[in-house]
């Protein structure tokens, strides 16, 4: 039933001529990008949450999806409780950071009490995916099954108009926030002394030699899990004002994150960002143009990439 889209015509544009066409195309193209921004930032953070643990400590851990769920719910509850419909950017960022810390704490606790004892990747995958059921069960008991929402930040930030496209400012905030987190992470990894230790133990380095060189593996792994938990929880918190928090969404988050790793490659921050754009924009375009493929497109992209480049577009082969 989908009808052809009528493209945006900015008011005051002369309706004929070459300029009009190119401007119209540019505008349409920009609208795809803007509309994809929330999903892009969400995918970047979630996928890197999974990617970071995989890259630094060579472990597969799916707990992040549960933490994402907790992050979303806690942001909604805390935001509604403290801020209500009064909104200030600083306090919202403070809430996000607090939620991030909570996520980090959960991640470390789960690692220390449970994941530490798992021996192989396959065990980790199965055990942590079962753990997701536990997370969603706890969410159900605490918050019930009705979706909850805290929309003040999203609504109060207002909208901008860029070349005839209406874009909520929150989209830019969300994308900026996740990009800043990614840049901070990149800075940490590549410019600081601690980052050096992380890279030494990563799949690119050599875990045993890192320890021989005096890197404390336990601390590195704990911090890795903390950062991963933080990213996941903040992803939940950032997305909650747009989409609310609802029960049973962790599976989908997990899939998108895993697919992004397949496409983007392990350990590549740039790969994660670009893949997020590819998947996000592909979703937006197919949603309007080819609804039949909308749900399938991320999976089709991942399968195609795997056939052409088995280690992801920017990935390299790791043996561990």
């Amino acid at each position, binding site marked *: 039933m989908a009808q052809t889209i009528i493209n945006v015509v900015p008011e005051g544009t002369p309706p004929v001529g070459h300029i009009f066409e190119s401007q119209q195309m540019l505008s349409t193209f920009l609208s795809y990008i803007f509309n994809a921004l929330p999903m892009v930032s969400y995918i970047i953070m979630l996928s890197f949450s999974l990617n970071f643990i995989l890259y630094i400590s060579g472990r597969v851990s799916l707990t992040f999806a549960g933490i994402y769920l907790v992050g979303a719910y806690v942001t909604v509850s805390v935001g509604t409780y403290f801020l209500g419909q009064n909104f200030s950017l600083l306090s919202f960022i403070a809430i996000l950071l607090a939620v991030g810390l909570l996520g980090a704490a959960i991640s470390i606790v789960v690692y220390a009490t449970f994941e530490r004892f798992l021996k192989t990747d396959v065990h980790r995958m199965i055990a942590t995916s079962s753990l997701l059921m536990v997370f969603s069960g706890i969410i159900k008991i605490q918050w019930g099954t009705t979706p909850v929402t805290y929309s003040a930040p999203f609504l109060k930030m207002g909208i901008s108009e860029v070349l005839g496209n209406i874009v909520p400012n929150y989209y830019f905030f969300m994308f900026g926030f996740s990009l800043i987190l990614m840049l901070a992470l990149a800075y940490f990894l590549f410019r600081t*002394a601690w980052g*050096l*230790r992380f*890279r*030494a133990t990563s799949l*690119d*380095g*050599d875990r*045993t*030699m*890192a*320890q*021989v*060189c*005096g*890197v*404390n*593996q336990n601390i590195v792994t704990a911090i890795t899990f903390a950062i991963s938990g933080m990213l996941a929880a903040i992803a939940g918190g950032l997305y909650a004002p747009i989409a609310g928090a609802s029960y049973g969404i962790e599976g989908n988050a997990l899939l998108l994150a895993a697919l992004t790793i397949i496409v983007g490659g392990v350990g590549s921050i740039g790969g994660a960002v670009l893949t997020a754009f590819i998947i996000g924009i592909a979703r937006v375009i197919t949603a309007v143009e080819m609804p039949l493929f909308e749900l399938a497109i991320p999976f089709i992209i991942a399968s195609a990439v795997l056939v052409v480049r088995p280690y992801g577009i920017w990935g390299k082969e790791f043996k561990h």
Partner: protein
Amino acid sequence: MLEIKDLTVFYGTEKAVRELSMKVSGEVVCLCGRNGAGKSTVLRAVAGIVHVDSGQILLDGKDVIPIPLHKRLESGIGYVPEDRKLFKEMTVRENIEVAKIGVKASGRKEMNIDELLPELASLYNRKSKLLSGGQQKLVSIARAIATSPNVLLFDEVLEGLARSMMIKISEIVTKIKAEGKDILCAESSLDKAGMYADRIIWLEKGQIVATGSPAEIKKQISDSIRAR
């Protein structure tokens, strides 16, 4: 001074090292023997990478076995692994940094890497995976001596190198010894060991068969072959 007493290490269910005792003080000792004789295992046990089943490893009279792997370098044991094992995505400088920042070289006089390994000066900003085998070996050594540990372990440090590089590295080993370090090495061939070792310990099935200077050992071996 490094002293090993009754060291026993299991590899799976087999004994790789059997009640081995030895001492290194102010010299370059090289463990030699065939493949699987246990020479690498001894080094790895001292470095803390493999689990020791019984025995003692004393560093200046202090047992190092309870010290966790990542504290060994700090307590004064540096290890150069068999096949270099650099952090290959990092630059040479970063490779050396890792060892420096992880360890507080408490009270030890720092070694001058630039003086010992002048070849590295021009390579500091190159990615280590782009270096040649010999250069990588140098980085590996630099990484181990960066914090000036008292005992150095070299695992087959001359393996797979060109003749000129072998000579260069044996000179470096001698220079390091001159700084007052104890050095324990492992080599699979007596010829290579003879290039830098003061004393050679011949291992067979995890036990010491013979000890002596390179020339003595060579003679013993050729005698035993003739006897057969």
